């Protein structure tokens, strides 16, 4: 199994949570953002790294979602409860959540379970609501790695995995259309942004409409020239949209940069 290389940009820490050791990586200064990796573990994305000049990023190795076996969570909601405890353990009083792919469901549940602490939620290429009968493409692992390599990502990107490779995710994911989860989305009071690459081959980007229906005040953003790895394939677009959203929340729809050409 290929190990993921994390560069010196991030310092490593370990938190003791409910009797488990949860390693995490941290970089940057500013308002804290909990970064939830997809299947395969903490992976460094250029579009995420660029956020460290404005935000303090904390990326825990999510038990079960990382490469080690983990049998103590029966659902993504359980994962979220564990992550809320992790955030509390490392002293985060308030924070935003940036969740990738298969971690989106856990990220959304975290926003619900820790509603007093979570200020904003960002779901990047979320694999949380799937069309009825939709099966993630079996060839997705190789395709993802190909896209990662083609995206000019740092070494270690071969750690990208697909949901198909994770027995844990398959076990705790639940139904493609999870009524409890969808009802919960409607209760979230915080600003929510979901991003989809228009060339996403794992989940049809049009599924973003459902997020918008369940969360009518949320933002549904399409990123052209990108598949599911937006932070690799369109890093500057990712940094721009996510950075603006973290800074301005729902007011990111307005322009905040001067458009004066020649003062």
């Amino acid at each position: 199994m290929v190990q993921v290389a994390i560069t010196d940009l991030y310092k490593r820490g370990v938190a003791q949570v409910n009797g488990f050791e949860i390693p995490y990586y941290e970089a940057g200064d500013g308002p804290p953002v909990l970064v939830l990796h997809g299947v395969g573990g903490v992976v460094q994305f250029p579009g995420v790294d660029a956020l460290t000049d404005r935000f303090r990023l904390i990326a825990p190795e999510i038990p079960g979602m990382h490469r080690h076996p983990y049998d103590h969570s029966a659902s993504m909601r359980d994962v979220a409860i564990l992550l809320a405890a992790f955030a509390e353990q490392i002293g985060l009083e308030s924070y935003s959540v940036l969740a990738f792919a298969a971690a989106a469901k856990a990220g959304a549940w975290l926003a619900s379970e820790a509603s007093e602490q979570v200020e904003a939620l960002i779901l990047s290429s979320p694999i949380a609501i799937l069309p009825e009968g939709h099966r993630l493409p079996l060839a997705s692992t190789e395709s993802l790695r190909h896209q990662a390599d083609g995206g000019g990502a740092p070494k270690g990107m071969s750690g990208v995995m697909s949901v198909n490779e994770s027995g844990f995710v398959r076990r705790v994911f639940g139904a493609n259309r999870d009524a409890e989860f969808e009802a919960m989305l409607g209760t979230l009071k915080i600003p929510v942004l979901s991003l989809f690459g228009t060339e996403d081959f794992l989940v049809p980007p049009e599924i973003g409409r459902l997020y918008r229906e369940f969360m009518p005040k949320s933002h549904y953003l399409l990123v052209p020239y990108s598949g599911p790895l937006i932070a690799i394939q369109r890093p500057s677009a990712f940094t721009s949209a996510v950075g603006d959203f973290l800074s301005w929340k729902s007011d990111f729809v307005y322009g905040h940069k001067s458009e004066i050409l020649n003062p």
Partner: protein
Amino acid sequence: MKTSFFSLGTYLPPPGGSGWPVPPGLYDPELGVQAMERQFAQWAYADELGYDWVSFSEHHYMPNLLQGNAITVAAAAAQIVKRAKIAVLGPIVAFNNPIRIAEEIGILDNLSGGRAVILFLRSGGFEYASYTANIEESRERTQEATELIVRAVTEPQPFGWEGKYFRYRTIAPWPTPVQKPHPPFFYSGNSFESAAFAARHRLGLACSFYSTEYLATIIDYYNREAAKAGWTPTREHVLYRGLCCICETDAEASKRGDRILNGQMSGEGGLVSQAFGRLQWQGGPETVVEQCRELHDIGFGTIDLTFVGRRPDEPPTSDEYIRHGMKLFAEEVMPKIRAFGDQPAVEGVSKSQTAGAK
């Protein structure tokens, strides 16, 4: 085969000056209003004569094409033309605001009761100077803008777009088009790359001015790329635009056309230079029918005609030659090319020897 009348709205007489842009100080509002009124009459006449579409096209700073915003002109036409489709061929999407265009498409389709047809135009040359736009990036900008506009007129939920060239964080145009999922959309198709893009995105293919030999290869490529994308275009998806000099006889058309090609007709000469120095249709009715057949045989289903060929003795502010060409074409050519129907395209290019469309 269907027929579209392209209304230029030419300012007459040509204001003088040389090159581009023509100084706005030469504009006489009285003549400008007359040009608009001639357009109104031409649109109504085209509708009366049975043309399937009346078309418009964005061009900037040009006295012979007073359509800096073609959709604005088309909106006016939609109130005069009661039957024919209102075809904007088109807005230049590379350097305009795509969301504004999406909104305008929705408005136009509602104003016209669902008769809008749209071509997403890349254009080139002086047009890019008019808005200080980067022509080097125009192909990719046109493609991104096209994808964005299609999304904007079809997406049921508000959405945002974080593109390379366009960024909008909230998009939710009202009104949406009457035609669902959207009006017929075409894409500039004079190159293989553009044809592939059109095929991948299930857009119609709009070609202009080039020879049938070349365009036969483009259409063949378009059809093959569409098959890869899982669909089969029909003739309805393939459009050709060109200049038409039609007279009662081949000899008269030759005489008038040659005067244009030799630069002896100011105003019309500019059109010919944009059409690669050729007249795509030139001749008497029978010859023009054969030229249309040649286009039909390689897959074109609609032709968009600009009538040229002023008589030397015709007053410079008259559009009598345009109306004459419109009528002659409608009476002598249109019934015959309509009868071409939608039978499968003949393999290869027709062997008919014709003066134009070459």
